[in-house]
């Protein structure tokens, strides 16, 4: 009986430790709670809850940078469409980013491009996950 209890406790500990120590989980939790620009500690190091696309967009807002970010977002969108895992909002975001760029609102354009590229990156990640994880949903 004692052995069973300790085994169950150990199993619970294993899952708890993994959950608590996964960087992605920690990042997503902090991002969900505090949004972007928040710093948090993980494994003794400090991290910021910004997505890589937001970091890339945190440069001087000018025509060249806005055009560069939009081109990058468009390329990533083509990548996600090639694996058939695009999200519906992304095309609209790209259109808005382009419109803002043409209107000279570079900051707005860069922020929207960052969001669009994030969508595409997540779609690609979803595609890779779908190749392996789908089987876990099949009823036994």
């Amino acid at each position: 009986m004692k052995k069973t209890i300790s085994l169950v406790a150990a199993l619970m500990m294993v899952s708890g430790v993994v959950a608590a120590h996964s960087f992605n989980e920690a990042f997503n939790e902090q991002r969900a709670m505090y949004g972007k620009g928040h710093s948090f500690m993980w494994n003794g190091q400090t991290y910021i809850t910004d997505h890589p696309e937001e970091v890339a967009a945190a440069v001087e807002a000018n025509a060249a940078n806005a055009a560069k970010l939009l081109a990058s977002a468009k390329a990533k969108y083509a990548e996600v469409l090639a694996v058939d895992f695009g999200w519906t909002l992304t095309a609209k975001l790209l259109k808005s980013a382009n419109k803002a760029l043409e209107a000279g609102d570079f900051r707005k354009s860069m922020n929207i491009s960052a969001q669009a590229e994030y969508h595409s990156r997540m779609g690609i990640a979803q595609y890779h996950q779908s190749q392996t994880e789908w089987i876990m949903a099949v009823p036994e």
Partner: protein
Amino acid sequence: MKIIKSLLAGASIALVASITQAANSGNTLASVDPEADRLALQSYFQKRFPQVALSDYVNGIYALDAPSREQWQDIEEFPPYEFDIEEGEALFNKTFANGKSYADCFANGGIGIRQNFPRWDASQGKVVTLELAINQCREANGEEALGWKKGKIAQISAYMAYTSRDNVFDVQIPNDKAKAAYLDGKQSFYARRGQLNMSCANCHVAGAYIKIRADLPGPTLGHVTHFPVFRSKWGNLGTLQRRYGGCQKNVRGVPQKTQGEKFRNLEFFQTYMSNGLVVNGPGARK
């Protein structure tokens, strides 16, 4: 030391359990077993809804939800698809410019054959749905292909389904290439997609008869039997793959190509799951 041993034992059990589940479910060409999948799915729904007869799953959500069933039965007194069947019959019997007709393209003159579609076509090396076969028939006889989702193709398909009512679905998987298409469809059904990160199974297996806002998703078992359907939301008749596209948009995913390989394989998988149930299309849905 005891704790370390327990931790190792726990980790091993967890690892073995996940591998066993994957192996049993069949995620490779070598391990996939369509018949085992079909029986497992039936068993899943029979355990969840023991009061529902297997044969009643052809009625979709109306097999599970009594109030919705009552409303649907009222609708079925004057079926909204009735005129579409008549129009479909007229279109089906209309001869092409070369003097031939749809009857020349299908077994048994195209009557009472819905239950055999989609089918694996060895000569084409792909899954052929009924709608694809209709358009292939047209093109082979010098006619233009119809649009895939609604209108004439749905009407012709509805008429062909109507002539097949009560026939038992009998989709065959004759070889490894067909099995690969089935496996691809199975993966599509269970894979999450779109910004909402949802799979077909989220709504139509685990989520069947669980409210999503004001809607009750139907069970996947029996899903295909009543298509094409007249949806109140559409206000007209539509094909199964029109619905697939709508579902993918609902989870904020860019829809896959209608009658493309992915959707045809998905339909192949989903129809195989309903083997043994009868054709009751066309149907009326919310």
